[in-house]
């Protein structure tokens, strides 16, 4: 099975451990990932400030056109923000002939063309639907026994089309975590927003959102939050100390990527495959015992 990988800007930096672990998991499960050559930024959630909607769609249409030109495989976009921007463009391209025409006029400026049909997939989608929970469970060498996780999808991971999971009450990642042997705590915030694209610039305003998530996870006795979105990971983890200051709390909650735990459970190396050393709020303590 071959897919395009669209790492996006996040996985190049703040989400580097996501990229490392996605690649490790793909390797373990026999997926071939090819990076789209010369991809560009998707525009992300903040796209509207400096650009128009058509400009943002242009960014994504270019990536789709490149993917089509380079083989037309399904594109895996691990970053939820990239996923949503790209799938939106892909969808609207199919649904709105006028837009499709416009985009092609625009693409022509750079010598590109897109005829539609390239599929944009979230990493959870591919793991759950193309591989399946059973294959994932079969690959587990070191089950995460005793690890209690709060599974946090965030907002953009399954939206807006609900292509592969419920938009309000998703379950794919829960099922994957259970396949790894982890204990999934009930988590009402699983699909609530953490502040997403404006978290960084409106931290005071968004603090209660992220605080709610960290709070419930702590309350439910989770050892860590598991996510599939680099923005959530960043907001909840990197700025956790800042949040504690704003909210007067003392959260100490590791936030890890689903693929990091998979890589570990598949018997991968803590650093090399799971990149768990890159988490600022360390989950090492809990995981050391579990996946020993």
């Amino acid at each position: 099975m071959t897919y395009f990988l669209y790492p996006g800007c996040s996985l190049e930096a703040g989400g580097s451990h996501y990229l490392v672990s996605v690649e490790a998991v793909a390797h373990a499960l026999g997926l071939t990932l090819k990076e789209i050559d010369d991809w560009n930024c998707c525009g992300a959630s903040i796209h509207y400030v400096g650009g128009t909607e058509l400009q943002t769609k242009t960014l994504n249409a270019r990536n789709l056109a490149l993917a089509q030109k380079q083989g037309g495989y399904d594109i895996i976009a691990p970053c939820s923000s990239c996923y949503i921007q790209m799938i939106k463009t892909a969808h609207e391209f199919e649904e709105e002939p006028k837009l499709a025409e416009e985009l092609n006029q625009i693409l022509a400026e750079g010598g590109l063309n897109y005829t539609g049909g390239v599929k944009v997939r979230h990493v959870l989608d591919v793991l759950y639907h193309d591989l399946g929970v059973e294959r994932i469970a079969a690959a587990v060498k070191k089950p995460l026994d005793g690890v209690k996780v709060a599974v946090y999808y965030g907002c953009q991971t399954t939206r807006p089309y609900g292509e592969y999971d419920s938009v309000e009450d998703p379950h794919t990642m829960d099922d994957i975590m259970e396949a790894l042997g982890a204990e999934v705590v009930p988590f009402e915030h699983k699909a609530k927003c953490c502040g997403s694209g404006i978290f960084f610039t409106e931290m005071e305003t968004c603090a209660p959102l992220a605080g709610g998530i960290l709070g419930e996870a702590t309350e439910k006795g989770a050892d860590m939050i598991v996510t599939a979105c680099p923005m959530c990971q960043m907001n909840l983890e990197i700025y956790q100390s800042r949040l504690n200051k704003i909210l007067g709390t003392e959260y100490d909650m590791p936030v890890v990527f689903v693929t990091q735990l998979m890589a570990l459970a598949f018997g991968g190396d803590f650093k090399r495959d799971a990149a768990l050393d890159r988490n600022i709020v360390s989950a090492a303590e809990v995981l050391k015992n579990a996946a020993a």
Partner: protein
Amino acid sequence: MGQSILVVGGGMSGVSAALEAAEAGYDVVLVEKNPYLGGRVAQLHQYFPKLCPPYCGLEINFKRIKSNPRIKLYTMSEVTGIEGEPGNYKVTINQLPRYVNERCTACGKCADAVEATIPSSFDYGLGQIKAAYLPHELAYPYRYVIDPSIVETEDGAKAKEACPYDAVVLDDAPKETIEEAGAIVWAAGWSPYDASKVEYYNFNSSPDIITNVQMERLAAAGGPTGGKIVKLSNGEAPKKVAFIQCAGSRDVNHLPFCSTICCLASLKQATYVREQLKDAEVTIYFIDIRAMDRNEDFYTKVKADEKISFVKSKIGLIEPGENGVLVLNGENTTTGERFKAEHDLVVLATGMQPNTDLSKIPADMVYDEYGFVQNAEGIFGAGTVRRPGEVHVSVQDGTSAALKAIQVVAGR
């Protein structure tokens, strides 16, 4: 007049179509999926706006059927194939086994003997019934059914043994029959939209969130609570009841059309609550109240009840509160206020999904994008497979479809 008219569906439209054609002198084959006639209206407690029992009219219709030799009835049957052309159809009917024959006197001894229970589909899953059962207290035909799940079990044998009339037939098998017909009326009705699909209402999270069709069974004397409106979580009477309109209807993500009857149904159900529970308060959350024609009088009457209030707001979330209370989040679109309102019983006014959306007619037919069927030359839709609507529209439509069918067979 040699040719039959085949009517699919024994609900209000289908029964009307069958009777009106038969009483005009035509032979009719009536095919019903359930073990009884009456369809969805048989499950209603009362009709709006008269607050009268549906069985009052159904009884007359059943009497007409019983006394009319022109109607041939198949229950527990579905049409699985249609071949031929207008004036000359061969229709395949697949009848499921009832495991009970005509000798049944509905004495109930089989049910007494059987231990296994199944969810009551007549009560929309609200209660459990014995696996040997009378579909409901007014069922026509008035005969028991044995659920296939117990046929090969000890319970099945017990049922057979208990029957004094040799009416239990455990080796009953599906039957396939071909009927010839000149024209077909498709009146397969509707299904309540799956409330769990409107995820933000968390339908499955509390037994005190029910749908409007379930509310009918709660209020019906023959229902799981004997007609008492209670919270299913603890059996207590609710104090603050909410009705959420357009729970899936008028929504491009669910049913993009208006289901037409839900506003009136909720107004009616509000009267059920108020009739039984003098202190209970009712709030109806709505976008537009659609009480067409003389039904407006009913709306006027319900509005006059001080304990029934109306809030223009589509509820955006139902979440659990303390002590099992349900918290409804909404924006009052008149005042602009965002509110959290506590209720202890929430009724979702889910809409009508045409059964032709869920399962297509086995013939070359055209549907609109919601699954409502368009008429063809020899196959005519009737009732809620054509549009969502009230009972009288189904009767009107059934009667109209009957004449269209007659036009095909008349003079042949």
